[in-house]
C-alpha cells in the first residue's frame, strides 16, 4: 500500500503545490514581530507544567509576597500615624511664663493671651491654672503643694486653626519683647524628630521591600534556570525545529506569570487578612491597656486605601517581575544556544 501511495507522492505530497514552491520566504514565514500561536489541540503545554512549577518555588513566592505586602502595609501605617502625630503636635504650641520678682503672674498670663490672639491662625488659648499646674507636678513633688511658695512657671496652650500656619517666629519675638519671662515652644524639636523617625521607618520599609523583590527575582532566575536544565532536551528540540527565543521564552514566561500571580495574590490576601484581624482586635480591645499601648504607637492600626493600593501594586509587581525575569533568563539561555560557537562533544 505504501508503494502505491509513494507513486502518487507520500505524506507531505498532499500539498503538492507547496512542495514545488521555493523554500519559505519572508511572506510565508510569520514575521518575527508577530508572535506565533501555539495551541496544542490536546490542551497540553509544550513545556510540561509539572516540570516547571515546583511546590517549593510556589511557597517561596507566597512568602516573599506576604513579607513585601506586610512591609508596604506597615510602612503605610507608620506613615499615617507619624502624620497624625505631627498634625496633633503642630496644632498646639505652648507658652511658658517663668516667674519674675516684680511680675504678677496672672497679669502676665492675660497679657500674653491678648498678645497672641492678635495673630492670624490662632483659635484659642487655654491657661493652666494653679490647680492644674499642681496636678501636673504632683507625681514629682507630691500632693498638697502650695505653688505660691515655689517659682513654678505658668503654662498656656495655644491651639491653631486647622490648616492655618501662624507666624510663630513673630509670636515668639512679640512675647519676648512684651511679656517678661515668656517663651514659646512650637514643638519643632519633637516634630523634627518624629519626621526623622517616620522617614527612617519608611526608608527601612522600602529597603526591606527592595530586598524582598530582589530575592524574588533571584529565586525566579534560579528556578527558571533549573526549569531550563530540567527541560533542556525539549528546549533543544524546539530550537532545532526552528523555534526562536521568544517562542521558547513565552512557554516559560506563561508558567511563571501564572505561578507568580497566584503566589503573590495568596501572599497579598494573607497580609491583608493580618491587617484586618489586627484592626478588629484593636477595635474590640479599645479599653484595655494593651490596645491603648498599640494605639499610642500605631494609631488606630488601620491600613488606609493607599496602603491597600500599595499591596495591590506589590502583588502585580511581583507577578510582572517573575514573568519578566523568567523571560529574560530564558532569552539569555536560548541566545546562548543560538550562538555559533565551539562546543564540547555531546
Amino acid at each position, binding site marked *: 500500500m505504501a508503494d502505491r501511495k*509513494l507513486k502518487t*507522492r507520500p505524506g507531505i505530497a498532499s500539498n503538492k503545490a507547496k512542495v514545488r514552491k521555493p*523554500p*519559505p520566504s519572508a511572506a510565508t514565514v510569520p514575521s518575527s514581530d508577530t508572535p506565533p500561536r501555539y495551541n496544542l489541540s490536546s490542551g497540553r503545554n509544550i513545556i510540561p507544567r509539572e516540570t516547571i512549577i515546583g511546590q517549593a518555588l510556589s511557597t517561596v513566592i507566597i512568602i516573599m509576597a506576604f513579607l513585601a505586602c506586610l512591609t508596604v502595609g506597615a510602612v503605610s501605617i507608620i506613615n499615617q500615624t507619624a502624620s497624625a502625630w505631627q498634625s496633633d503636635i503642630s496644632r498646639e504650641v505652648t507658652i511658658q511664663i517663668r516667674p519674675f520678682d516684680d511680675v504678677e503672674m496672672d497679669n502676665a498670663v492675660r497679657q500674653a493671651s491678648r498678645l497672641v490672639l492678635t495673630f492670624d491662625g490662632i483659635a484659642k488659648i487655654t491657661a493652666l491654672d494653679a490647680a492644674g499646674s499642681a496636678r501636673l507636678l504632683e507625681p514629682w513633688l507630691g500632693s498638697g503643694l502650695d505653688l505660691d511658695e515655689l517659682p513654678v512657671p505658668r503654662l498656656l496652650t495655644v491651639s491653631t486653626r486647622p490648616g492655618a500656619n501662624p507666624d510663630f517666629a513673630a509670636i515668639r519675638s512679640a512675647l519676648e519683647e512684651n511679656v517678661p519671662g515668656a517663651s514659646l515652644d512650637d514643638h519643632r524639636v519633637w516634630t523634627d524628630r518624629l519626621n526623622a523617625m517616620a522617614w527612617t521607618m519608611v526608608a527601612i520599609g522600602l529597603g526591606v521591600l527592595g530586598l524582598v523583590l530582589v530575592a524574588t527575582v533571584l529565586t525566579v532566575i534560579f528556578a527558571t534556570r533549573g526549569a531550563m536544565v530540567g527541560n533542556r532536551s525539549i528546549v533543544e*528540540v524546539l530550537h*532545532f525545529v526552528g523555534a526562536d527565543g521568544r517562542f521558547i521564552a513565552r512557554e516559560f514566561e506563561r508558567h511563571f506569570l501564572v505561578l507568580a500571580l497566584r503566589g503573590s495574590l495568596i501572599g497579598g490576601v494573607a497580609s491583608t487578612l493580618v491587617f484586618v484581624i489586627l484592626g478588629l482586635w484593636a477595635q474590640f480591645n479599645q479599653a484595655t491597656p494593651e490596645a491603648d499601648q498599640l494605639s499610642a504607637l500605631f494609631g488606630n492600626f488601620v491600613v488606609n486605601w493607599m496602603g491597600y493600593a500599595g499591596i495591590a501594586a506589590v502583588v502585580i509587581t511581583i507577578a510582572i517581575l517573575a514573568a519578566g525575569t523568567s523571560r529574560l533568563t530564558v532569552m539569555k539561555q536560548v541566545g546562548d544556544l543560538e550562538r555559533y560557537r565551539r562546543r564540547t562533544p555531546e
Partner: protein
Amino acid sequence: MIKFENVGLRYGVGPEVLSDLTFDIAPKSFQFLTGPSGAGKTSLLRLMLLALKPTRGLVKVFGKEASQIRRSQMPAIRRKVGVVFQDFRLLDHLTTYENVALPLLVRGKEEAQYRSDVTELLKWVGLGDRMHVLPPVLSGGEKQRAAIARALIDQPAVLLADEPTGNVDPPLARRLLRLFIELHRSGTSVVIATHDLVLMDQFDARRLVLNEGRLQIYG
C-alpha cells in the same frame, strides 16, 4: 547550499576529529554520509546544522558564511533544515501527531492548515493508528518513523538524517529510503548518515566517506 572549505574540528586540546573537509551539498542533491563508528559522522552533521563551530576552515550555509550569520537569523536558517536525530528526540509528553506537527506549530501555523498533511504523512510512514499515543509506548522503529516525519513535514530545503533506518526492519528501511528519494525529487537536498551498505546499494547516490576524520567523495 552547504559548503565546507578546509574545515577542521577538534574538541578541546585533543586531536582533530575532522580534518580538511572540503565539499558542498548542492541544491536538490542526494548523498549518503558513511564511515565506521566514531569516524565523526554525527559531528559533521552538527557542523552542517550550525550546532557546532569548526576549529578552522570556512562553512557557508545558503550562501552565507556561518560565522557572519547573526543569532537572530539562526531560527530562519534552521527552519530550512530538517533533522532526524539518531536518538529521535521526540517530546515524550506530546502525542505522535503533536510531535510531527511541532515544526509547523513553532512557525505559527494554525492546526486547521496542517492537520490533513500531518495525518497523511503519519499514515504513510505507517503510524496512522499510533497518531494519538505518546512516544514512550512506541517501538524504536515507530519512534524513528515519527522523527523522520517531523523532519519532513515542512519540506525543508536540506534534510540531515543521522542513521534514520537504524532501528527499522529492511522492508521499512526501503520504504523510508523511498520517502527520502521522493523528497529529494521534489527539490530537497538529502544527506543520510548511515552504516547500512545494503541501504546505500539501493540508490545510486554520491557517497561521502569519513575515515579517521578525513573525507573521501565517491560519485
